[in-house]
């Protein structure tokens, strides 16, 4: 800071001390967010709740999804979702109350919409956001069919996916609001 600037600053501080002009009693924070339009929001909003609200256009069946799976998922999730090195995606139904529970999409996940949401936002791990909506629907259908939850030719789309009832749909107890511990 130059001497001249420093002098100016000191004068201002002195002025402020005398008159209080640099202080404010307002606690209103600055409103610095900028308005966003619906089209822009649509590019960002990728979360899909159980109602299926926000599911995109497109569709796919398990038969179509098998190709996507074998190309982009099998290396980590194993043949037919058997797992290793990454999580198993199929099997385990009926094991949850046992001493060795097997928690997969089929045995544990309560909503099929979560599968679509997660595949679209995070998979494949080395190239997320790369699958088309048709591919996400198809690979979702493939994993659901591996678990026998839908048939191989059932078509998953914005209407049918939220209708899928997962085997462990009623297996969760909400702890919010919190119970006493």
């Amino acid at each position: 800071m130059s001497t001249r600037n420093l002098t100016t600053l000191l004068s201002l501080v002195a002025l402020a001390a005398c008159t209080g002009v640099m202080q404010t009693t307002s606690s209103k924070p600055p409103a610095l967010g900028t308005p966003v339009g619906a089209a822009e929001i649509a590019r960002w909003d990728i979360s899909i709740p159980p109602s299926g609200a926000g599911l995109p256009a497109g569709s796919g069946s398990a038969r179509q999804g098998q190709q996507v799976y074998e190309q982009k998922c099998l290396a980590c999730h194993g043949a037919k979702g058997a797992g290793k090195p990454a999580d198993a995606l199929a099997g385990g139904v009926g094991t949850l109350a046992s001493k060795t529970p097997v928690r997969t999409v089929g045995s544990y996940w309560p909503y099929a919409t979560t599968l679509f949401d997660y595949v679209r936002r995070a998979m494949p791990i080395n190239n997320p956001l790369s699958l088309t909506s048709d591919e996400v629907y198809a690979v979702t259908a493939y994993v659901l069919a591996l678990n026998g939850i839908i048939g191989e030719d059932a078509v998953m789309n914005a209407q049918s996916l939220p209708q899928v009832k997962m085997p462990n749909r009623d297996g969760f107890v909400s702890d919010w609001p919190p119970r006493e511990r």
Partner: protein
Amino acid sequence: MDEKSDGRRRFLAQGAALAGGTAFAALSPPGAAQEIAGQPWERVYGAPFTGYGQPSKFEAPVIRHIGRPYGDLAPGSGAALSPIESLEGIITPSSLHNIRSHSGTPDIDPKEHRLLIHGLVARPLMFTVDSLLSYPMTTRTHFIECSGNSSRATTPQPAQVPAGAIHGNAACSEWTGVPLRVLLEEAGVDASAKWLLAEGADSAHMSRSIPIEKAFDDALVALYQNGERLRPEQGYPVRLFLPGWEGNMSVKWLRRIKATDGPTHTKDETSKYTDPLPDGRSLQFTFEMGVKSVITRPSSTMTLPRPGLYEITGLAWSGAGRIQKVEVSTDGGATWTAATLLGEERPKSFVRFRLPWEWSGKPAVLQSRATDEKGRVQPPRKEWTARYSPDMRYHNNSIVSWAVGADGKVTHVYA
């Protein structure tokens, strides 16, 4: 630093090194340099300034305990645990803070990063990082603990690893940022909004649902950690911070908050971060981290060199608020003594406890038991284990036991 002053500094350093060596030796009587006590580093000019400080090279063994469940396939997925056995006080150095990441650490350009707030709001808004930095700031000291911390204490046999490798998926920092409620009020949250969906800009787009009550209570949109801007692995340039709640809800690299009428049931609040019960059902949305403590010294893999006086010390914390007391037992829980506390006035913060202990040389089992201001008491391990399915890995706040052998060796035991 400009080139000129850098050059001048180097010149001084070289000159001093020369002066400390041959030049002065020639002028001084033989043996004179030995008369005044002084180590070799007292006889040479010291290292120049550095722009960003590093610890002593002799502290190189103090590093995070890194766990990579997927190996080289996904080297940034997993956790790096804080070496709490080597640390003191209540603030975790940022470089040794625990890390839990789902798809590695993204390399985010703060000029390009945006935070979108939308959903059930009157005015959907986009924020730049610069704009967030212009709001009045709030600073608070809080712990953050991964819900899966201490999962290594759920294995059939007690792991013989340092305390931090089991219980170090927690850390405590001073966090500075904008209260989330300020941004939500600017957007005008609708009365019908009961939850928020928070989403990160990592390649997992890690997302969690958060009750709106928490957002209007003590949630921060954090920009600084321990006085400096967030570290990349802690969410640079902006993260959510939900004091006392399971760590991954404090979404790092925050890019979007959507006000919703219900929870979104994301992958990390259904398939993971749910607490399996013995009957096959699972608890969902168990947000608050329980009251907990762990003795950090002496602890597993250490050795007491001789009988005599030691200080038992460790950390305690509670997601419900302040720590009220920490008791220490040296006889496996038969008798308890209240320890001295440091930092207990801070809610949802690490508290340091200390208790002097005269070790007789006979075998001992060291335990600590914390109680918080809500009257909640850290449970014995058996009691905690009985509540859940055998594969429960989250929210383990049970009492930790370290056995001291007659040889002074400290081991991890289940007691």
